[in-house]
């Protein structure tokens, strides 16, 4: 009786785990399978190195280059904006506020990560885009800059949380010793804490980049979505936006349809490369400390 | 003789932690295992009730419980007969009472009167009853370290084991609590066989009937407590004992 119950439990758990595993693999294989016709049909010269995206024209052209550049442009710019602010904020929360208030502020910053991205898109449209139109004298504020600024806010929690954790750890280890030498708090932060956290800052940056590349709704709502080469103050369309906007119109099993899967695959590969880099840096760091 | 090992070796991956251990444990006695940290004492203890497997260890050689190879005993039955207590007290995050009834309920006891009797009986044996009788529904994690450890031992007794393994049960406790547990162990050995790993030589001397000295995964020497402490045969044992005394 008891053995029976044990066996039933083990079976249920195994079935659940196998089901999850199958779902995960199914997604991977399906994406791979559906994108193969595209890669077979269209040469890499066209999809990576030409410049035009017009899948529905009578003379169709399939180039992901504008979208890939837009994705990278928006994401890197967002990281460049978010990182200095987040690192500074991390230092501020680790050294200049009381434990209690920094914990409250941190948990609110953390909650930003939980806000649905469509809300960011909405705010970006009514605040940021309008602001850019008014102040930069733009015809339309929907642009790479708007996307990057908005995205940088969404990345705050990812970088701030990770960095603050490292700063706190460094504080525990070195702060007392450094203070006993009579140097200022700021000097300690600059000369000891920051160098100690260099690697961790970099890893957090990269992980945030992975998150940035896949962001769909918020970016889509403020970048204007034209499949052209991105300029800072011009419209652009990222890969996720491309997929989201065209998946409803592509005919099932057409080349256009397959191209969207190919775009998805390229996106996944970008994210995976980033994750692997972060993983390797992390591992190298572990070895050095251990 | 209740437990006997025969060329017992334990591996973690390719690392050989225990090498050809041959020892015996007498029924209703306290046997202390001593030796420097990392000599395999804890590993040895864990291999006796096969919990070593949960940590990924592989064993070679044989262990006999009452002349029966433990690999022929169903693993739950084996662990039921050989109980184990860890260094840090591991109370379950329930009330004191639920800690005590956790195992009996599994073994099919549903009668609340009987459950209560069992719980109280072993709390009394562990000398905890007087201290907690008013609030058995209190979270066990709120007890002091010494009380928690006694609760863990009491919980271990609820399944009626033949052998109790203790892994440095007092190293996290103060002198008074240590004394409490030691006198309890001396009381318990009338009914149970006790094997205790300890760093504290004085403790081994106070409570143990037999002592095993281990070094580097091998048993250097085993014998009656007085013999080991007063006239050890092996120079390594002697060195360790003199070293620990100073």
């Amino acid at each position, binding site marked *: 009786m*008891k053995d029976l119950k*044990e066996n039933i*439990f083990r079976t249920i758990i*195994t*079935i*659940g*785990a196998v089901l*999850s*595993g199958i*779902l*995960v693999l199914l997604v*991977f294989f399906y*994406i791979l399978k*559906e994108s193969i016709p595209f890669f077979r049909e269209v040469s890499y010269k066209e999809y990576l190195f030409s410049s035009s995206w017009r899948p529905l024209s009578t003379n169709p052209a399939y180039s992901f280059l504008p979208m890939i550049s837009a994705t990278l442009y928006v994401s890197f710019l967002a990281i460049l904006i978010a990182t*200095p*602010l987040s690192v*500074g904020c991390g*230092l*501020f929360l680790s050294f*200049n506020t009381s434990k209690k208030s920094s914990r409250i502020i941190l*948990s*609110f*910053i953390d909650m930003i990560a*939980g*806000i*649905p991205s*469509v*809300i960011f898109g*909405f705010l970006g*449209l*009514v605040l940021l885009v309008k602001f850019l139109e008014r102040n930069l004298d733009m015809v339309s504020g929907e642009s790479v800059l708007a996307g990057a600024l908005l995205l940088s*806010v969404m990345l*705050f929690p990812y970088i701030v949380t990770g960095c603050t954790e490292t700063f706190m750890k460094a504080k525990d280890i070195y702060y007392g010793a450094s203070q006993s030498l009579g140097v200022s708090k700021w000097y300690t932060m*600059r000369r000891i804490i920051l160098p100690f956290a260099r690697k961790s800052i970099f890893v957090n940056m990269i992980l945030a980049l*992975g998150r940035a590349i*896949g962001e*769909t709704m918020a970016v889509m*709502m403020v970048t204007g979505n034209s499949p052209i080469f991105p300029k800072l103050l011009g419209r652009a369309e990222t890969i*996720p936006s491309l*997929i*989201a906007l065209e*998946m409803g119109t592509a005919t*099932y099993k057409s080349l256009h349809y397959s191209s969207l899967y190919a775009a*998805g695959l390229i996106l*996944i590969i970008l*994210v995976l490369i980033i994750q692997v880099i972060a993983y390797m840096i992390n591992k190298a760091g572990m070895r050095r400390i251990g | 003789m209740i437990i006997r090992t025969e060329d017992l070796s334990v591996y973690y991956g390719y690392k050989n932690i225990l090498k050809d251990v041959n020892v015996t444990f007498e029924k209703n006695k306290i046997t202390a295992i001593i030796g420097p940290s990392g000599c395999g004492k804890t590993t040895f203890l864990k291999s006796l009730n096969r*919990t070593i497997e*949960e940590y990924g260890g592989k064993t070679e050689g044989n262990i006999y419980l009452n002349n029966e190879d433990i690999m022929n005993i169903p693993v*739950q039955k084996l*662990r*039921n*007969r*050989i109980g*184990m207590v*860890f260094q840090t007290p*591991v109370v379950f995050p329930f009330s004191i009472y639920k800690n005590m009834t*956790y*195992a009996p309920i*599994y073994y099919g006891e549903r009668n609340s009167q009987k459950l209560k009797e069992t719980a109280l009986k072993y709390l009394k044996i562990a000398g905890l009853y007087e201290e907690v009788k008013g609030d058995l529904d209190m979270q066990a994690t709120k007890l002091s370290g010494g009380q928690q450890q006694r609760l863990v031992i009491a*919980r271990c007794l609820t399944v009626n084991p033949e052998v109790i393994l203790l892994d440095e049960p007092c190293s996290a406790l103060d002198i008074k609590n240590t004394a409490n547990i030691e006198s309890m162990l001396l009381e318990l050995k009338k009914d149970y066989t006790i094997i205790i790993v300890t760093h504290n030589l004085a403790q081994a001397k106070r409570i143990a009937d037999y002592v095993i000295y281990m070094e580097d995964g091998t048993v250097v020497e085993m014998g009656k407590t007085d013999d080991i402490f007063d006239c050890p045969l092996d120079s390594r044992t002697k060195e360790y004992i003199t070293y620990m005394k100073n």
Partner: protein
Amino acid sequence: MRAKELMFKFWVILSGIIITVITFGLFLYILYKGIGVVTPEFIIGSPKGIPLGTQGGVFPAIMGSILSGLISGILGGVLGLCTAIYLNYYCKNEIIRKYILNALQCLAGIPSVVIGLFGYTFLVVGLGISKSLLSASITLTVMIIPFISIRMKKALEETSKEQYISSLSLGIPKGYTIVKLIIPSAFKYIMTSLGLGTVFAMGATAPIMYTGVVIVSGVPGKLTDPFMALPYHLYILVNEGLSVEMAYGTAFVLIVIVLFINIACHFTGKNEDV
């Protein structure tokens, strides 16, 4: 030297203030702008006006979001918990364990829009399940399985190994130990993972856009009905330029639900530490 330190100080304090102000500003702005719009009628009414959505309420969208969140939360929770338990306690083969973990990690990195694409073509077009609560919830489930499994696995690891071994040492088998000891000990963390996963599902737009959500519908009565959802409703209001005011109201409701679950999870998580 002095100038450098001054610059440094300026940078740290300024970025601290900027991020803090933006963070609190965000929440307060939405709450401030939305609170005027949110009347009882807004909560319990259906979209009205011409075009639809410019007046009336968002009740079907609230229900749609809650239902799809609930279904995918339950499905993802069960599968995620099974996966976590399997990985921690039943998987004997170290290599298989590593593969499953890596696959989950990878899937967690896949952008939600790609999962949406998968759901749309596989479930809706391929298998022919209509655009419905069911297909949308399954798509969301696929999205949150890695999120939940990884967090639940961590939750189970929070309970000490010695506790698990202590129970085994009483002669009690794995399954009973997991059900009666490990899961109750880690219950709060498990619920937190579940809550966060559900919020994640409820806030997602891209995965449901083509798998089940529609611009206007009633409260779905069956699994095969299409439904409205708050994030998509917000997207439509904004993107079609229907009504900014209604958009603030919708954002308010969405953020209140998200914050409520988040804070609830946050505090139950805290209690465990004390």
